[in-house]
């Protein structure tokens, strides 16, 4: 699923323009009634430790496949017109954007559900790993049990 098509994913080091991505989800269409979107950002604190930066490692090749598959599952479950997923890798600082998920649909129920589903699945199925820089040194972020249970809801 390449950028420019109605369903596309990108894995990139560069930042993205969430507003432009949101606009593109309904551009030149008159059948889109709902655009739900999500932006995930780096916080300066996690589990009680200050975070000065983080590095996102990923599995090149598999990452794109996993995201494609997550989007495909969402398309099978809801009536969707466009989906855009962007996930960054590399070194990021607090307030930097990490991930964008945007879903366009005729109705808001489909758009909201698919957007949240994609985020929940991405959290447990897409091969990214965060390594945080904290005052006590670098540490790999542990997976959250809440992420597994969030994904298991669907």
């Amino acid at each position: 699923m390449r950028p420019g098509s109605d369903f596309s994913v990108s894995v990139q080091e560069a930042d993205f323009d969430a507003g432009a991505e949101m606009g593109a989800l309904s551009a030149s269409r008159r059948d889109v009634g709902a655009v739900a979107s999500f932006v995930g950002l780096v916080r300066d604190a996690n589990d009680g430790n200050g975070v000065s930066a983080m590095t996102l490692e990923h599995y090149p090749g598999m990452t794109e496949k996993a995201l494609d598959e997550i989007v495909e599952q969402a398309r099978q479950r809801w009536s969707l017109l466009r989906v855009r997923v962007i996930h960054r890798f590399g070194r990021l600082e607090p307030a930097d954007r990490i991930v964008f998920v945007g879903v366009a649909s005729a109705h808001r129920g489909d758009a909201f559900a698919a957007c949240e589903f994609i985020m929940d699945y991405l959290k447990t199925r897409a091969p990214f790993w965060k390594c945080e820089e904290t005052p006590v040194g670098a540490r790999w972020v542990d997976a959250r049990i809440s992420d597994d249970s969030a994904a298991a809801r669907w």
Partner: protein
Amino acid sequence: MNVKVLYFASLREAIGQPGEELELPAGVATVGALRAHLAARGNGWQALAGGRNVRAAVNQRMVGADEPVAAGDEVAFFPPVTGG
């Protein structure tokens, strides 16, 4: 019969390398058996030992321990993912 093995994140750091080419020993035909074989090397490889929370992919798809491993496969081991 060679397979390509990859390690990511904390596993890559514990093992000290991002991956290797490997000839599968006789009797190693699944992801779980390959994992046990590698863990038995000791030292950093013990990060792959049973009880550790390790996930695996074969040919870039997440799989369970019973997944067969065949010649030419790309097998990856990594901790639970933490993206998003």
